[in-house]
Every structure is written in C-alpha cells, then in structure tokens.
C-alpha cells in the first residue's frame, strides 16, 4: 500500500462556539488544506483567528461543527497516539525532576515507566541539549530550558505529528531566536510533520516549508505561501534578500487587511 502524500487534511472545515449569552461565534470558516508527510507548516495570523482551534481539532480535543479533519485519511474522532503537543507555556510538573517530566506521558498513559523508557527519555534530553539536567528540579531551569523539556516530553511517544502552539512566544527575544534554530536542528534529526502556530512573521519564514496566513474572525485561509529558502537554514538565512522579501510580502498581506 502506498502512503498518501498528505498526513493531515482539513476539508470544508467550520467551527463555531456558543457564547454564554446564546450567541454564536464563528472561529473558522471554509478551511481546506493538506499537510504533507514531514512537512513543516506554520500557521500565521492575528490573535483570535482560530489558529489554536486548528491545533485542538487535529489533537482530537474538540470536533468541527462542519467539515472534517482527518489524519492518514481517518476522520479524527478522539485523541490519537500519533500526536505530540508543545504548548505556549512549558507546563511541567514541579513534583518531578526533568527526567520524570519527560517520561510523564508514559507514566500517565500506562501507569509505569521502564528502564528502557528512561533510556529513551535520556536520549531525547541529549537531543534537546539537556543531557546533564536529567535530575534537576524544574524551577532550576530557565524558560528556554523548560520549553526544551516540553519538546522532549512531546517527542517521547515518537509521534508522527508534532503540534506546537506558539511555543516560543513566552520567551525573551534572544532565547526565542536560539530556540528556533534548536527546533530546526531537532526537526532535522527527528523528521516529523509539524504544525507550528505563531504570530511572528520572521519565525514562520525561518522555520517553515509552507506558511498558511489566516484572516481574523472568522478565520479563513488568506494565502498559502511556499517558503523556498534552502535548508539547512542558519543565522545567515535571516540576512538573505529572499527572507526579507517574503517577510515583507506577508507583512503587507496582514497590514492591508488591518487597514481595510
């Protein structure tokens, strides 16, 4: 059986939420696109455009009002094992050390952690650059390091799909740039299909193969942009003319909309 070229497919998606006063808010409308195998897709848009809703739909945490979300051509009807999630905040557990946090998904799902699991968690800590920090307490780590632990935790069950909900937006600017390059390195070592939610244009251009630009309420796909910057990308990429051209183009898209 040949594998389909797409891993995730949104078709004719509409998502409305009921408010407390009985009125309805349309968060997403007529969203249709695919995400390919091992593609790094960034979803870019202003606040309240339903970016995070897209992520929660794939994760099976909420279900669409109309249309369908499918993973490997199977409609998402519950949370699936193929998915790892990194949230905006690291949300680690202070009562476990770093290693305990990385192995937490296994402890939580199956109730036990084997020596083999721990070895795998240590490998992941090495991958995210925290090999010496396995026994550290969470409050001994900086924000960037905590988010590295959260990435390792998301990779523990070796998911095909990595969902990232503005993972670096709570970090300071320097750490944020550093983490972007770290993520590119991690992704190149463990190829995954990535859905990366962000409201930072440079971040999206630097990281992604393709960018989906969303409109504000209701969220629609405004434009789909292929980022044809060569990989591996590095600090040099940031000064390439094509990088700036693309970033300016997207900025123009978002800005005209805001004025209109």
């Amino acid at each position, binding site marked *: 059986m040949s594998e389909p070229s797409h891993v995730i497919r949104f078709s004719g998606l509409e998502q409305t939420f009921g408010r407390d006063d009985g009125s309805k808010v349309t968060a997403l409308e007529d969203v249709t696109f695919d995400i390919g195998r091992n593609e790094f897709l960034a979803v870019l848009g202003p606040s309240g455009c339903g970016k995070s809703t897209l992520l*929660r739909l794939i*994760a*099976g*945490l909420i279900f669409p009002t109309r249309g369908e979300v499918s993973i490997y051509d199977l409609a998402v009807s*519950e*949370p699936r094992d193929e*998915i790892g*999630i990194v*949230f*905006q*905040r690291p*949300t680690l*557990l*202070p*009562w476990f050390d770093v290693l305990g946090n990385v192995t*937490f*998904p296994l*402890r*939580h*799902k199956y*109730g036990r952690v084997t020596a083999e699991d721990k070895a795998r968690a240590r490998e992941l800590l090495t991958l995210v*650059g*925290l090999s*010496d*920090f396995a026994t550290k*307490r969470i*409050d*001994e*780590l*900086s924000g*960037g*390091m905590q988010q590295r632990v959260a990435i390792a935790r998301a990779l523990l069950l070796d998911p095909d799909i990595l969902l990232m909900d503005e993972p670096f937006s709570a970090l300071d600017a320097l*750490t944020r740039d*550093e983490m972007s390059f*770290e993520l590119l390195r991690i992704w190149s070592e463990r190829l995954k299909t990535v859905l990366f939610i962000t409201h930072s244009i440079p971040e999206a251009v630097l990281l992604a193969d393709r960018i989906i630009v969303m409109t504000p309420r209701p969220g629609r796909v405004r434009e789909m942009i292929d980022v044809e910057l060569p990989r591996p990308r590095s600090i040099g990429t940031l000064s390439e003319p094509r990088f700036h051209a693309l970033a300016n183009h997207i900025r123009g898209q978002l800005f005209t909309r805001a004025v209109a």
Partner: protein
Amino acid sequence: MRSPTISVDSSSPAPSPETKAPAAVFGPRLRLWADRLSPAGAFVALIVVWEGACRIFSIPTFLLPSPTAIVAAGLEVSPVQWLSNISATLRVALMGYFVAIAVSIPLAVALVNSRFLSRTLYPILVIVQSTPIVAVAPIIVVTLGASDLPRVVITFLITFFPIVVSTVTGLTATPEELIELSRSLRAGRAREMLHIRLPFAVPYIFSALKISITLAIIGAVVAEFVAAEHGLGFFIAFSTSFFKIPQAFAGLAVLVALSLVLFRVCTLAQRWFVPWSLPKSQR
C-alpha cells in the same frame, strides 16, 4: 552558544561567606544572628514587661497573674495530671483533624468532578460552616452522649471546611494545558485526578492543613468546655470556676505551646514529604 552552559555557572551554589574577605564576614553574620534571635527576643521582652507591670502596679492575681505566678501554679500540678490532660485534648483534636482530612479531600474531589454534587452539597457545606459551632456544641453533646464521639464531631465540624475549600481551589487551578495533555493521551479521568489535579492541589491542601490544625485544638477545647472530665479545656474551665486564675493561665500556656508544636509539625511534614510545594526560600 547554548543557554545550558551559561545557566550551569549561574545555578551553582553562591560562594560561602568564608571565602570572602574577613572584614566582610562580621557584619552579615551579626545581622543574621540578630535576625534569628529577634522573635525570641521580642517574646522575652514581652514576658519581662508583663512581670514588671504585675509587680510595679500590684495587679491582683485573679485579674492578671504574673508569669512567675503562672509557672509556680503550673508546677503545683503533677506531671501525671498534665500528661493526662494534654493527651486527652491531643487525642480529640487529632482524631477530629484526621477524620476531617479523610472526609474533606475525597469530598473536594467529588465536588470538582460533579457539577450536580457541587450545586447541591456546596450550599449545605456553607450553611454548616456559617453555624457557630460553639452554640451547637451543647446540642451535639446532648445528642451524642458523654464520650469522645461528640468532642471529635465538634472538632471535625470546625476543621473540615477550610480543607474542602482549599482542595477544591487547588484541584481547579490546574493549568488547562495539562488537562489537554492528559486528554490527548487518553489517560482517563481517574489518572487525570491522581497524576495531575491532586498533586497540583498539594500546596493548597497544606495551607489548609496548617490552618485546620490550630482550629482542631480550638474545636477540642470548645468541646471540653461543654462536657468533659479531663483535657486542657476542662482543666482551664475547672481552674477558673475555682478562681485558680494562675493555674488557668498555665493551662492556656500549655495549650498555646501544643498548638504551636502541631503547626510546626505540619510545616515540617510539608518540607519533608513535598518540598517542591514550598517556595524556594522555605525549603
């Protein structure tokens, strides 16, 4: 280039005062001792002022006995009698306290899990809490008879509410992302409660346990005021009724000491068993 290497250096223990120049050592040390001794100093000063005031103004002992008179009265009571009173009060207080813990935490879990239960039970709990237990205590004693049972019930009624409220607050304060993580792993409601919500509530629960342990002593004393043949509450009521005011004060001092020791045990228990739940400075 990466932050870890930088952070290793900054997180290593700060150089100890010994490694600094000798001149710099004396000042901070002295200040440290002054800081440590100041609570005890304030306490001693209060006792001295109290004693002095009693002697200078010749305050009658039935109004305010001097500290020395209180100590003397305390020493007149045999150690065996002290021990039996202390153990009676302690037994009632701890029984009520542990029953309150055993009831309150599962109750809080149930309230958080069921909207129906929280809609129906919560108002009733608030009514129970709003009822002055001191006023109800005599009724409880009449209803439940003359044993430890009514005293434990009274203690329980005074102690349980803060534990329920704090535990509910803690259980619902869990970050939404962790609940989503749990759901994305399909771990189930029981594990979500056990692995995420309950541990997250631990700091809240310990705050309540510290409040409730002192309430438990109050509960036991209130119960002993109403009906008892022994216990520190009984001892104070008995002494007062015979105008042995210094002896009543001695009982009060023992009661305060008992309360402080129990509070301290709570604090230490938190530090030993769940140090992560304390701010860094208190570990």
